[in-house]
């Protein structure tokens, strides 16, 4: 949940982390192979990865490219733990503060990946952008 409130809304924690060789979601993962399945038009190996912090992920991996085509994450959030973290983060915050969660809850997050390519040369200007005036 802390990741969801971060600057990238959790977007940095899966594929970008893998690309940069960072742990991302997976600090101490336990991996289990599940039965193969088709997903988004790909013949896939399926993995169930459990991480003590980030919950359980079901990951569909294209057998030919080893690219991740689909992920499904289920995370049980402990309200007391989250309240503690939020209170700490909001200690020096002024203005309207977000409501603190009262009950445990579940987050499910699904990513579908398409138009995937590895090792295709990219031009530097693909990475350039300018900020619009607010």
């Amino acid at each position, binding site marked *: 949940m802390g990741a969801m409130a971060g600057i990238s809304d959790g977007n940095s924690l899966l594929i970008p982390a893998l690309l940069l060789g960072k742990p991302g979601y997976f600090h101490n993962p336990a991996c289990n192979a599940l039965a193969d399945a088709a997903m988004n038009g790909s013949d896939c190996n399926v993995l169930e990865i459990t991480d003590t912090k980030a919950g359980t992920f079901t990951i569909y991996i294209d057998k030919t490219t080893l690219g991740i085509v689909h992920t499904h994450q289920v995370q049980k959030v402990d309200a007391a733990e989250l309240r503690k973290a939020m209170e700490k983060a909001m200690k020096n915050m002024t203005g309207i503060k977000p409501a603190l969660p009262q009950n445990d809850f579940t987050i499910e997050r699904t990513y579908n990946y398409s138009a995937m390519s590895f090792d295709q*040369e990219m031009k530097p200007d693909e990475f350039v952008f300018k900020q619009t005036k607010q």
Partner: protein
Amino acid sequence: MVKCKPFFAPFRSGQKNYLSQSALFTNILANGNHMKKILFILLLSAATQDFLWADAGTDLFNKVKAKYSTCASFYCQGDDTLTSDEQGKDHPFKAEKKFSIRFQRPALLRVDWIEPSMSSFSPVTNSLYTQDGKYYTVTSYQRT
């Protein structure tokens, strides 16, 4: 330490003496009664299968990590759906986004995503990028 009956003791004690475990297995198969043999074979095959699946899973995940952490470049696009029951089962929250990821080694990364605005009809565009391994974000960008 968990106290257990002698038959299960070697399985639960985590003993590392494989030679004596092997002798015990042989002993059970040779001298145990019929039910013990069946139970033993079931336990052993279940444990072996779990171990092999976990091992295969870890191997595959390591291969995927190696693929992503060594590729020269990467591009994909996709969609992201998040649901939560934080406001109660009767008031599920749902958020959907579209995104693209581009990456060029050593550390040229850019993630763009677009999501509905809470306060406007125009969707919000965001970027996450890095050139040095640290993450930076920009909101409401315009592609050049």
